[in-house]
């Protein structure tokens, strides 16, 4: 039996981007303690990802699990903190920008979500996100790591990252090497299959590698998965903005600790602010300059098939608006230790993963559909976005939110409730009325509590160091103030 000492488990990862290296670290940690088990990664040289990554706090959760230090990562890779996303230009009626902050937004009262309290006892739902410390910090371009002390308001903060992809990849690669993970540079030139799935891969026409479990981290190319299992769902009809162009711009000051998501007449772009440059990824409906790549949104029907697990962009390519690549990867990797194979038959492991992954990626698809379907721009290409029929699940969730601001329960969601609420409210989808539960709060008490939270958020943010200064301090090895 594979997995026993006599025939130890071997895992082979193909793909050298952050996805591949994070997977190598996760797999190595999962098999620690299995006698003789091995994890090997084959990485191709050359560009493996966009110049910059914008990652929500899910990546931080994964770092924590893998024993990676966030301050260290920011300092060593020249990265920046991300406290949320800042949306501009999504409202045709000239309504202002809106923020989707990380960390807590106020505090729920039993099943009564915080935005209901703001609607019933505060200044109205437009103000909802402003109760989050992250939103105030974004406005003031400030950053400090969250406090571990739950009595400190700073403990309500959470953050993600803006990362220089090459530097981050190098850091992950160095960490993998320090941990003794075998890494071989090379290109897969041939893939051999048999009735159970993959039988082996040839590197550079010379070296032949075999493993029990193959992990495809080759992104949209799906090198391994395509050899055995190419049944894909194509999501290209979900959005007209399928052409991507990436640009480097000079850094902006102050350094915004948020990813800006900006819509314009012909498409949209995200701006990822790093201390040394701002990277923009622009998405349009036509390839207007030479340097564009075409997106291939969609997913594999069974990302784990036979002895091959596809992860990251090989498993699913959600619309970049969904902000879902790293959350999907993080969940896959957190699940992996409990699903280690024990032999050639991995159907049970695969089925458990595939069921969960389907629900998680459904959430991603619904989220981008929500944004594209609810924006109110007037250009024909944007108007056409609103004609797409939402999934039943999204239609129900939206109807319930409109009826009373309530969130439909959803299993395997990759978003926090506040992410859905800020998107709806920010795009002008408003509940017709607040939840009657909110009327059970004493108005004076509730309103005083709202003022208190708002004040705490503003004051705590004002006391945080400037984002740029905080990063410089981290780089210099000075502990946070």
């Amino acid at each position, binding site marked *: *039996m594979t997995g026993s000492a006599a025939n130890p488990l071997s895992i082979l990862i193909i793909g050298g981007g952050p996805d591949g290296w994070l997977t190598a670290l996760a797999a190595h940690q999962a098999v620690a303690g299995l006698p003789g088990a091995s994890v090997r990664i084959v990485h191709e040289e050359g560009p493996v990802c966009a110049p910059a990554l914008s990652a929500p706090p899910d990546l931080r959760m994964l770092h924590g699990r893998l024993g990676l230090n966030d301050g260290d990562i920011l300092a060593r890779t020249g990265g920046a903190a991300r406290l949320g996303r800042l949306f501009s230009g999504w409202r045709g009626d000239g309504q202002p920008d809106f923020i989707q902050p990380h960390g807590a937004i106020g505090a729920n009262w039993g099943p009564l979500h915080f935005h209901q309290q703001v609607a019933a006892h505060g200044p109205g739902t437009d103000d909802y996100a402003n109760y989050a410390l992250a939103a105030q910090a974004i406005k003031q371009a400030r950053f400090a790591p969250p406090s571990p002390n739950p009595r400190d308001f700073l403990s309500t903060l959470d953050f993600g990252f803006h990362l220089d992809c090459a530097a981050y990849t190098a850091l992950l690669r160095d960490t993998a090497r320090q941990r003794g993970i075998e890494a071989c540079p090379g290109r897969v030139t041939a893939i051999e299959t048999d009735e159970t799935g993959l039988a082996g891969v040839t590197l550079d026409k010379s070296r032949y590698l075999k493993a029990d479990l193959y992990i495809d981290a080759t992104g949209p190319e799906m090198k391994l998965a395509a050899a055995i299992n190419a049944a894909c769902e194509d999501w290209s009809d979900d959005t007209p903005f399928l052409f991507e162009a990436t640009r480097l711009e000079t850094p902006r000051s102050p350094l915004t600790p948020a990813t800006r998501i900006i819509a314009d007449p012909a498409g949209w772009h995200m701006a990822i602010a790093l201390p040394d440059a701002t990277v923009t990824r622009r998405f349009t409906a036509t390839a207007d300059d030479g340097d564009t790549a075409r997106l291939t949104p969609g997913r594999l029907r069974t990302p784990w098939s036979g002895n091959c697990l596809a992860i990251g962009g090989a498993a699913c390519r959600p619309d970049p608006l969904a902000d879902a690549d790293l959350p999907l990867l993080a969940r896959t990797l957190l699940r992996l230790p409990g699903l280690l194979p024990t032999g050639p038959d991995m159907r049970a492991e695969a*089925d458990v993963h595939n069921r969960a992954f389907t629900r998680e990626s459904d959430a991603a698809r619904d989220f981008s559909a929500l944004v594209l379907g609810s924006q109110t721009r007037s250009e024909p290409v944007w108007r056409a976005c609103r004609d797409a029929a939402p999934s039943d699940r999204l239609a129900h969730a939206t109807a319930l939110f409109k009826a009373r601001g309530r969130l*439909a*329960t959803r299993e395997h969601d990759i978003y926090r409730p506040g992410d859905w609420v800020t998107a709806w409210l920010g795009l002008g989808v408003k509940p017709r009325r607040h939840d009657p539960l909110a009327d059970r709060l004493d108005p004076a008490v509730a309103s005083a509590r709202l003022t208190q939270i708002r004040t705490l958020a503003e004051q705590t943010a004002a006391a945080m160091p400037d984002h740029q200064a905080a990063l410089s301090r981290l780089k210099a090895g000075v502990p946070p103030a």
Partner: protein
Amino acid sequence: MSDNKVDHILIIGGGTAGWMCAAALSHRLPTGRVRIELVESEAIGTVGVGESTIPHIRHFNASLGIDEADFMARTHATYKLAIEFRDWGRIGDSYMHPFGAFGVPGAAVDFHHDWLRSGGETALGPIDDYSLPIAMARGQRFARPASDPRDLASTYAYAFQFDAAAYARYLRDFAEARGVIRTEGRVTDVQVDGETGHVRNVSLESGQRIEADLFIDCSGFRGLITEQALATGYEDWSHWLPCDRAIALPSAATGELPPYTRATALEAGWAWRIPLQHRVGNGHVYASAFMDDERAETLLRDQLEGEALAEPNRLRFLAGKRKRQWNRNCVAIGLSSGFLEPLESTSIHLIQSAIGHLLDLFPTGEWDPAEADEFNRVMDQEYARIRDFLILHYKATQRDDTEFWRHCREMDIPDSLAGKIEHFRERGLIADYEHGVFLKPSWQAVFLGQHITPQRLDPRAVNAAAGIRPLAAELTRIATAMPGHAEVLSAHARAAAD
């Protein structure tokens, strides 16, 4: 708020479901603005088979501010830590489904992998030996769980076994003290608005007519409003759960006070034994296609440990659920919403869950269909998950001594359950639900207790019999140091009497 408020609620039926609704609604809705009325008839008996509960009931009681000692004294309640299943996988078997985890808290690998890798029952004894609530149940001990999650004494929860009729009376006092108006009478007519399809009012035998904005149908199996007036329809699950009758028969207390319920599989169904302070609740759930009523009664009487205290109470039902639990302005709660046999003591839980979701989604008065859709979606999921867990007990059997058990072994099961069984049989995997009553330890107990053994184990599981074995003795030691169940109950009775 808009003008079309929901400020008059009529609850039809005053059994456990009706009075639980009345108590919770009167406690949680703004008093003075909402009028809550309950119609019940002394002439119509209540079913009250739900005498055994699961730990969630404590949240319900706590949300009403009910004092545990007082409630237990008034309902003759005992504590409950587990259910013992006898003769399910094979005749002669016995295993416990505990309200708590197996093994030590916080382990990276689920305990059954380590237990099996280390030799399983042969080397380590039954997995039941590695659960604190089971050790407590066997030793008839009780204490409340510790609060530190690293402490072994924190690894369990508890529920109650009580007299459901006494519980309904207890909640009636609670609800009436909070302004709920009780009207004695039989409903003879229900008026439905031809345009909206909403129920407008009900008429009683006395001629009295009661209007309401929201009707809560707690009228039992027949579904006086939801079915008889609104023709909601019923989803029949009897092809998966063929038992369709029950006989209930209380017997005299035996002097023992086991803090657990017993479910013994018989020829074409199963018998419950629920020990209360003053008597023992017994019943036999069976499939009429496989057994006649007379034989069913004989088998039940054979199970009694004390003398019978009443005439047998006979019930008929059909496993399944109402197609829409919330239809128009009527929410069905209790047996009017569906029926799942009390094998895992879920009847009261389903009532509690429906009340909780109704309060969370309390209608705004605009009757937006999204509200009912969400309620129905959540309750459908709750029903389907309990259903699957119940079917598992019948499907995972090696019994072939009767036509009934041969039928159960061979029957088709829902895909959702087939997947779960396959994942466990293949690789010992139990995928966690994010929402659902029965979590990992429950599935572990039933899978292993009914001989579904994983063919492959987590490769991280270690063969460490010498390291695991002392845990059994440690759990027994912790349980033995706790006070006896009977002593704890007497202390409660003294406290309640003061």
